[in-house]
């Protein structure tokens, strides 16, 4: 089963570069790696100079890359729901659905749900990989995405309770009116249970310390530290642990760097600033030759 590693953090700290370096380092060790960008403002294409899309493309041996086309996925998902509605609803009820769905695509919550669907799709399709590295969007969307399973389970459990009470009352009415006639299983309750199973699986992956690892990427500046502290606090609230802190673009001698006080109990990995642009495989490999001994790469290798 493929393991997941997520890179999150403030915009501009170098999440895509760090995930690209990690992917190359692991592929260089012979691991089968998939690098996925869930960030709607993709950077992987620019980093590798390869036009990535919704299907994986080979970068080097053992390494494939892809960028999720979030807009296309939202469109496809809503079209699927609309088709299901037209098939199950009466004609007059479904008549004006087109216009309704044009508005729904802008509803809050759609973006993160689409990312979650993409994540599940990747998990199902690329389970044969050793590791799937996920370059996450900047903080706001990432937190919404990571919160979605636990928040949805909270709602679904309450909806399930209410639905079961409704069903119990309906059964009493049927028993009194029609004797022992059995009523068919409630399709809404079925739907709720199916969604609960799906969210439970996703939450299981995210909270597992053996199947997935979350890394916060940050820089040494105050703003970056403060936002990373906030991310850590929010993740704790939903029961997600941070596997490690990556301090990227370190300017001074990294042997002198000290752990940041917000995260004293979490492993720190320091990646020095590069004097040359970290784009294209050649430059990234050059960086790995210079700094490939970083604890980040050895930790990731042992995680698999």
């Amino acid at each position, binding site marked *: 089963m493929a393991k997941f590693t997520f890179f999150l953090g403030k915009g501009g700290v170098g999440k895509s570069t760090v995930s690209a370096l990690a992917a190359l380092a692991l592929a260089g060790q012979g691991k089968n790696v998939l690098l996925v960008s869930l960030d709607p403002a993709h950077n992987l294409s620019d980093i590798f100079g390869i036009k990535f899309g919704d299907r994986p493309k080979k970068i080097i041996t053992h390494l494939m890359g892809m960028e999720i086309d979030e807009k296309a996925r939202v469109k496809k998902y809503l079209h699927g*729901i609309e088709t299901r509605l037209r098939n199950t*609803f009466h004609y007059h009820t479904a008549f004006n659905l087109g216009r309704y769905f044009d508005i729904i695509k802008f509803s809050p*919550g759609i973006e993160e*749900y689409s990312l979650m669907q993409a994540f599940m799709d990747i998990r199902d399709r690329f389970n044969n990989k050793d590791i799937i590295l996920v370059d996450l969007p900047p903080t706001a969307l990432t937190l919404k995405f990571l919160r979605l399973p636990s928040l949805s389970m909270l709602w679904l459990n309450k909806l399930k309770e209410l639905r079961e009470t409704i069903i119990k009352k309906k059964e009493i009415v049927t028993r009194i*009116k029609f004797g022992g006639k059995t009523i068919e299983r409630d399709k809404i309750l079925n739907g709720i249970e199916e969604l609960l199973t799906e969210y439970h699986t996703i939450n299981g992956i995210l909270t597992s310390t053996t199947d997935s690892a979350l890394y916060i990427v940050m820089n040494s500046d105050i703003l970056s530290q403060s936002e990373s502290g906030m991310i850590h606090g929010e993740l704790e609230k939903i029961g997600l642990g941070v596997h490690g802190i990556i301090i990227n673009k370190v300017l001074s001698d990294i042997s002198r760097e000290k752990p940041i006080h917000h995260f004293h109990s979490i492993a720190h990995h320091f990646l020095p600033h590069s004097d040359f642009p970290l784009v294209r495989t050649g430059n990234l490999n050059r960086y790995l030759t210079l700094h490939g001994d970083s604890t980040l790469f050895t930790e990731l290798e042992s995680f698999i």
Partner: protein
Amino acid sequence: MGLRLKPYPKMKKIVSSLKRWWHRYDRLYKVSSVKLLEWETREMENIFALILFGFLIGLPSAPVSIMLELLPLMEDDLSIVMERLGTAHDPLGELFSLLDIG
């Protein structure tokens, strides 16, 4: 052990009329209690749908992803919400008429 009523035909008549009376009484109260239970169930279904589609009328509601996944299964529930909109201005009136008050 059943009652031996053969020697008392009058008693048999009384018992069977009591039974008839009891059945009528039972049916009458069952009908009104079932009506109340059906009303309560419909109200709960309305609340269930409002939890999911409340955002359409400005109420805080469940994540839109849950609403979208369950929407294709909920045509009947949507009809209840639409029906309830018609009587929403006088919920007490509806309840009183159901309970035969006033």
